[in-house]
């Protein structure tokens, strides 16, 4: 009965397909990581080119994988069934997991990834969401950086702040505008970068304590001379 079939909600297929693609890309990224780890010493220009291409493929696979994870989370948040669950946890544990997800890419690109995070610093956050925001921001920074990226976490009077700084060319003006638009809650173009920013903004805002609400910021005030992304959580 075509009439019946036509009634089937397309969003069901979209959702299950996104799940499937996400899992598949996860496996693909794991293989690429393994391949990079097994490359060993690069002695010829040919090997170097192969390694760079693999690294580029890894970056793309992870980038799309992250976007799909974000899409799924955003869908659940939008439909009011994301199980938001902030817990009081050490930031260092989160930072370690974030680094682990970014180190293979950093190594393959020859970028030094530093982290500055006190062991005894605690914060209330939804682990999966904040992990998603930071991994995405770190991948982005690694992509544009020249030699160094720094992930740092610190206490604020009002909560905690994560910063991701790089030594690349910095954010272009239009992105700085978009980042600021995100903070004001104005709808903006959802290109691929738009999605990441939008996701980060939504995640930040979900974190509330009393009257305080989380926020993100984009600037070119990096201590390393490039772009700086910050996530503040109350």
């Amino acid at each position, binding site marked *: 009965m075509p009439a019946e079939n036509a009634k089937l909600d397309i969003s069901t297929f979209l959702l299950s397909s996104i799940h499937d693609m996400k899992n598949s890309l996860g496996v693909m990224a794991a293989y690429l990581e393994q391949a990079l780890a097994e490359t060993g010493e690069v002695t010829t220009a040919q090997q170097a080119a192969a390694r760079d291409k693999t690294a580029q493929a890894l970056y793309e696979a992870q980038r799309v994988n992250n976007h799909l994870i974000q899409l799924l989370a955003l869908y659940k948040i939008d439909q009011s069934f994301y*199980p938001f669950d902030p817990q009081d946890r050490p930031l260092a*544990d989160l930072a370690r997991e974030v680094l682990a997800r970014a180190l293979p890419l950093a190594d393959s690109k020859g970028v030094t990834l530093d982290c500055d995070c006190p062991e005894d610093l605690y914060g209330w956050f939804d682990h999966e969401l904040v992990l998603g925001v930071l991994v995405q921001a770190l991948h982005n920074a690694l992509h544009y950086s020249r030699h160094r990226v720094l992930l740092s976490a610190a206490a604020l009077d009002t909560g905690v702040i994560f910063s991701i700084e790089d030594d690349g060319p910095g954010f272009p003006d239009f992105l700085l505008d978009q980042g600021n638009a995100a903070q004001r809650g104005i709808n903006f173009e959802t290109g691929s970068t738009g999605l990441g920013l939008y996701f980060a903004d939504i995640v930040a805002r979900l974190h509330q304590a009393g009257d305080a609400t989380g926020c993100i910021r984009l600037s070119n005030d990096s201590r390393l001379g490039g772009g700086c992304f910050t996530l503040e959580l109350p």
Partner: protein
Amino acid sequence: MNLRALPPPDLSRSQILIIEDFEGMRAILRDILTRAGASRITLALNAANAINQLERQRFDIILCDLHLGQGKNGQDILEEARHRALLLPHAVWLMVSSEKASEMVTGTIESRPDDYLIKPITETMLFSRLSRQIEKKQALAPIEIALREHEYLKALRLADAALDKANPHAWDLKRLKAELAMHSGEHGMAKAIYEEALSLRNLPWARLGLAKIHFNEGRYDDARRELKAITDGNRAYLEAHDWLARTLDRLGDPDGAQEVLQRALATSPRAPLRQLHLGEVAVKRGELETAALAFQNSIELARNTPLKSPQAYLALSQVQLARKQTDAALNTLSTLSIDLRGDPAARLLAEAMQIPIRLQTGELDLARELAQRLAGELRAEAQQLPPEAVFNLAGPLLTLGDKTTAGALLGCLISNNHEHPEYLERAETIFAEAGFGSEGRDLVQGAARAATDIMNRGVKLSREGKLKEAIELTREARRTMPNNARLLLNHAFLLIAWMERHGREFTLNDEARRCIERARKLKPGDKRAGELLTRLELIGNDFEVPA
């Protein structure tokens, strides 16, 4: 780089179980664990295999995928393992999932795993979570042991002692402490923790905790307000939906209750108890088709799990009978006797509940033959029969002229529930409809009065200091009304008062504990049960909690 890499946990002596249906994932997990020195790794490919392994040996670490294809999922395995005490006190259970699911945000001490791992799983993630949880479970093992011994007060004090030190799991401990306080009837202590948490931020588990206190203390309007504050914004908090439905039930709003349950089932349909509740609410609203479907779902989902009970089968067969589907109703009963063949009460019920069906189909001889054959057994097992079954059976027995058995069943029901006005009324109505109005009233009122009388005499004797006589009285009464929650608690109270004066005695201690546990099953959330448990624990005991 100031962040030091954590050393991998030492797993060289750990017994590890991996429960995972996907081969690739099993290999990834095993490889990572092997890098931390693990050599004793057992693999389970499905739930049945996992239960089998858990029965055979005790594991230190269990990594379990939440979704295992058809059949039981990881949550079912965890609950069964806890229920059957197949886990060591320090065992770490990590649940692996491909995404954050609504099951992960609520739940009780009994149903929560130690942590969730969301794929993709990296070595760093697995090691850091494992290290944290191993350390935590080692530290909390004494609390876990006290919990298993039902020593809630001791567990509470141990939790307090742990909280005195700087603790990386302070809020896990506080949440645990609040749950322990609820078990000990210390609602005030639990409330303080939940309110402290809510002053920090809007935490659903803390609000749910507050709502449960309101509910248990009969403040249903307050409970509804708190629960709606959780469920209105988000339908992922399933447990809050279940409590809201329960609360609306109490507030006489079955329409609201059904709506809430259906919303929760749309998010997570694999919940046999939620399906059962939906069926019950739908029956109240006269939506028999919805009810039948819900009971059917409940039966299918609970089959092969510890959650299966005759309740859903009996309710389904009753709905089918009301819809004049007598063949289906008989079929349901025969499924009951097959699915619960190890349970003698279920087998008896599966036979006895055919009586009303045979009456409706006009098979009078069959009905009479059944009633005659089962009468003795029904009277002997009267205490084990669920109230709904008794109500549905008593009328047909009266129709068949067996006033003795009907009276025995209803009398027993009233003795055990003498403070339940709705039951008294229903029992009297059944007699009245069969034309035995005054006789029925005498029997029902008499049974209720006899129970009240025993309570009063017990209280009087204990006030006069005649504890021994009071104990004799309530102990004797327990034989005839073993499921009367108030009597059980009164009896426990007297035993405790005796031991407080004369010292702990093993048999009395055991008797008191059984009474309290039974009463708690009959009336979950009764504050008095927790308070008595605490007093029982305190007899001749002031816990030495190491500083």
